[in-house]
């Protein structure tokens, strides 16, 4: 689309100078997704790269199906963050799908991971849960669904790298306290409620200390064992 605009503009100038002059006063906004989602930029960055506020998540490069599920959940009030619930309230499924696909297609650079401030023990506990789970407390390994490289699985499971600790613990807390719910059966609700406060702190510290891959690589649909059933990731 974009690429043809200058040509059209040129044609208009050559053929219809009067109309072109008039069209200056009635200039339209760019007919692009980038222009349409400028409303999201103050919190998620112009390319969905996130901002310096640790609580505002990156959107770029996450699986489109996952982003779409989140947009629907915000629109319908199942996932709560009032400024976003308000912005999306009167948008159609089709448009939310386009927005999700747009952010999924972007690849802005990841920020440098913050050097961990937590102790070695905390990080080791986090790594253990992420890779092997905790059989004694029934916690499945996060990698069983989010992938061995934690890059996520298409269509509905997001990667866990490139997120900051405050955001990760905020989301796990949201599931435990019911402000975030995913499509039923909500497997993350079960996982999150098996974790103790210390476990949450440990996985958040470990995950946020890992560098994110330059190119997100989702595991193909259905390729991971998934110890629980998830509504967002139908088989």
């Amino acid at each position, binding site marked *: 689309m974009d690429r043809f605009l200058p040509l059209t503009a040129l044609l208009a100038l050559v053929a219809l100078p009067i109309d072109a002059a008039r069209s200056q006063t009635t200039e339209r906004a760019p007919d692009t997704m980038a222009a*349409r989602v*400028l*409303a999201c930029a103050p919190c998620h960055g112009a390319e969905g790269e996130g901002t310096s506020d640790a609580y505002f998540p990156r959107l770029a490069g996450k699986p489109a199906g996952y982003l779409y599920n989140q947009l629907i959940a915000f629109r319908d*009030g199942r996932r709560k963050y009032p400024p976003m619930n308000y*912005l999306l309230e*009167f948008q159609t499924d089709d448009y939310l799908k386009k927005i999700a696909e747009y952010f999924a297609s972007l690849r802005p650079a990841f920020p440098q991971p913050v050097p961990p401030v937590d102790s070695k023990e905390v990080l080791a506990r986090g790594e253990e849960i992420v890779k092997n789970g905790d059989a004694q407390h029934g916690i499945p390994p996060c990698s069983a669904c989010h992938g061995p490289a934690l890059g996520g699985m298409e269509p509905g499971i997001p990667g866990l790298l490139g997120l900051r600790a405050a955001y990760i613990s905020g989301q796990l807390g949201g599931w435990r306290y019911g402000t975030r719910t995913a499509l039923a059966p909500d497997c993350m609700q079960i996982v999150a409620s098996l974790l103790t406060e210390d476990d949450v702190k440990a996985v958040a510290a470990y995950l946020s200390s890992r560098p994110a891959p330059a190119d997100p690589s989702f595991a193909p649909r259905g390729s991971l064992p998934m110890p629980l059933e998830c509504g967002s990731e139908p088989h």
Partner: protein
Amino acid sequence: MSRTSTGLLVGLLLALSPATASAQQKAADPAVIAKGEYLARAGDCIACHTAREGKTFAGGLPMKTPFGTLYTSNITPDPQTGIGTWTSDQFYQMMHNGRFPDGGLVYPAMPFASYTQVTREDSDAIYAYLRTVPPVKQLNKPHDLTFPFNNRSLILGWRTLFFREGEFKPDPTKSAEWNRGNYLVEGLGHCGMCHTPINALGGSKQSQAFEGGLIPMQNWYAPSLTSNKETGLGDWTIEEIVDYLRKGVSAKGAVYGPMAEVVYNSLQYLNDDDVRAMAVYLKGLAQGGAPEKASTSLPSAESSLLLSFGKSIYDRDCASCHGATGQGMPPDYPPLAGNQSIQMVSAVNPIRMVLNGGYPPGTSGNPMPHGMPPFAQKLSDDEVAAVVTYIRTAWGNRGEPVSARQANELRAATLN
């Protein structure tokens, strides 16, 4: 109609109902059902009678009022929990006179004060349609109102003051189009429910208590549609009003706040003739002279400082979309110069737009709207006040300046 004769009528209806009920077991004509579906859209029944992620028409949506919370009813044809046993007479009585089948009084949050205008034929069509929607077994949630508003007999007082029962009577001196517009705006559209205080019922503060409760709780201001001071529709072309109502965007302004819900759930589904008729009627209401010039309440030296501060913020944060001279990029980015909806005496709307941003509703005429970012985190109260003062007074706009305090108070407004 006096209260005694209404009572008599109720008695008669009750006596007649078994016969009427059996007459209604016959399947209704598909054309009537389709018409009823369309009219239910025009009445926006779905917006109130469907909870978020709830079953269509099963009710349960909380409606916050200054007196507590009302929960809307299940109007699916389920015989136990919905209106499956109602006759078309009983349904008409609800729409027309705001009474339950047992004669009990309905809270005016159900817009019967407007629906009373709906013709019997149209009421029957809506009834026929509602009988065809999937029945849902879901008990009505009891209302949660504070004393004394939990006492339904209080509604009698409201009714005496503000309820005028009566079907729409066309005005023979006006065009058929104008009359159709009048019928839709004052009747099914229940536009006056938000666009008080000067509505067809002559409602005042007390009627707002019930009628407009929605708006004070939401902290949005719906301009009076009958006053030249408030709506700028006098300057709009019919085409622009039609675009605004049906697509949610127009060359003159975009739909935002609670009006977005009306366009999203109701107006976008109406046919071109009906929306045009509404526009013709609305334009008639807003005719006669330019809006009055507001008087400035800040001393001029102070306000000129505020203005230059406001201009610097505008040039930095707003001009890229709304244009250096407020011309916008219509219809995607609305113009602010000459935009009446930001110059009204109440500055609630422009302040909230700056704090919260917004998207016009996604409609079939504008399926992928452009949006405006929220500035609540970026701008301080002083900066919000300055930029809103600037857009209300620059480029020939005639609004009044706003204070940092007004901006601050709206930070806490409920968003959703």
